[in-house]
């Protein structure tokens, strides 16, 4: 049996192994993802992002508990991917999100995986998308992704998740912070956590006034491609009909350590998913997500093919010429591309 088959049989050790292979970008990892891809696309992927210390881990813990509880409508199997930063100096990392998730221990319907960002700057690791696919294929119906503590520009999560929660706390900023571009724009649901602390009214007012100033009509993240110079023309695929009203991000107050506000939050998450399905936005997001993944893979593959064909010395020689100002970067690229 292959690793992928074991994963589909529900073997948790095999899943853990496969996730390691995916993280390390090995051949086994790629083979596993290839085999599992047809089984993906069933999970509701929920991103949780926000500044460090806003309570993302505690919130993920509570969300998982709620989705596991069968008293509402049904119980879901929950996968959690928690990303923490790698040291830019040593490459090491402390992955501490499990500390807040101890309530989930002993539940075989929950699978938690910690990931180090390994040099990625967008709030996720390069392999997070692959890890999510593997959990999806393994039958986890709700996948919660906790990003690195994010500032203003770590918006990769919006491309990967169906529903993005941006977690704020009282006292994080005024109404000018709230209208800046970036992280607040990507919110499908705004969460004010630690809502038992002073300043919660002001925080909500700032966020509400931001929403009243206008909200993007449709969240399609064309402007957040990882690299510039991206000039693939807009493809003329049949854009799914977007019907009904636009989604206006609700603001939900929570106290994650006590579970306050969680039923309302879960309800909003489910409403958002329903909205995505009914409006045709789900297909659109799925398409955008797969497109950015395709582009990324294409870029990596082309790069490695090119590297195979051009001798390493050529590259360093060109770099020398560049440093001596004998070539411009544009000419250098032309030269290097001619050689393969």
């Amino acid at each position, binding site marked *: 049996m292959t690793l992928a088959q074991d994963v589909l049989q529900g073997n*948790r*050790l095999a899943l853990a192994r496969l996730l390691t292979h995916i993280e390390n*970008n090995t051949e086994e990892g790629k083979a596993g993802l290839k085999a599992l891809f047809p089984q993906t696309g069933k999970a509701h992927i929920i991103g949780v992002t926000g500044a460090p210390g806003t309570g993302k881990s505690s919130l993920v813990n509570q969300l998982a508990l709620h989705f596991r509880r069968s008293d509402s409508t049904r119980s879901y199997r929950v996968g959690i991917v928690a990303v923490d930063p790698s040291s830019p100096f040593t490459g*090491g990392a*402390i*992955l*501490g999100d499990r500390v807040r998730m101890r309530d989930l221990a*002993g539940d075989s319907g929950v699978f938690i995986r910690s990931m180090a960002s390994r040099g990625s700057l967008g709030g996720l690791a390069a392999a997070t998308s692959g890890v999510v696919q593997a959990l999806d294929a393994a039958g986890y119906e709700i996948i919660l992704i906790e990003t690195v503590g994010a500032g203003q520009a770590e918006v990769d999560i919006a491309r990967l998740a169906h529903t993005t929660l941006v977690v704020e706390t009282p006292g994080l900023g005024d109404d000018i912070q709230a209208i800046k571009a970036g992280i607040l724009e990507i919110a499908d649901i705004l969460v004010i956590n630690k809502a038992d602390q002073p300043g919660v009214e002001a925080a909500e007012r700032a966020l509400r006034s931001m929403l009243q100033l206008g909200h993007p009509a449709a969240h399609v993240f064309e402007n957040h491609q990882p690299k510039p110079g991206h000039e693939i023309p807009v493809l003329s695929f049949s854009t799914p009909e977007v019907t009904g009203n636009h989604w206006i991000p609700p603001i939900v107050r929570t106290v994650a350590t006590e579970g306050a506000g969680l039923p309302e939050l879960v309800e909003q998450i489910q409403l958002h998913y329903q909205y995505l399905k009914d409006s045709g936005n789900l297909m659109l997001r799925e398409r955008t997500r797969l497109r950015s993944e395709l582009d990324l893979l294409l870029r990596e593959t082309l790069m490695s093919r090119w590297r195979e064909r051009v001798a390493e010395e050529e590259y360093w020689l060109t770099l020398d010429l560049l440093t001596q100002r004998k070539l411009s970067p544009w000419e250098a690229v032309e030269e290097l591309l001619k050689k393969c």
Partner: protein
Amino acid sequence: MVERKIRVLVAKPGLDGHDRGAKVVARALRDAGMEVIYTGLRQTPEMIAESALQEDVDAVGLSILSGAHMALVPRVLELLRENGQEHVKVFVGGIIPDEDIPRLLEMGVAGVYGPGTLTDTIIEDIRKLTAGKSEQVVSS
């Protein structure tokens, strides 16, 4: 290609609340380029084994200052084996009486580290042991 990272779970089983040692070790392993999954205080052996499985770690470091090591460590080893993770190296740190060290090693613990151990020693041992060689090390 991403280089293969050593993943280590650092856990505090049992009831003592002194986690400074565990944090010092976690930090040192981080600075040595390892990915450290830190689980916090008061973990049961079941929780530790479950985390080790989900995280697919190469090594587990247990910090015990309560004196309950002869009960907790064998249980962790047993659960790892039950889960098919007998390849995972288990290290024990904290307050371990000298006479217990040989017994722990006999059970399959890869190394025991008492107070005063240099973090470099632990790092070196983990690197060596997770590279495939399965000798045991003691420094207390």
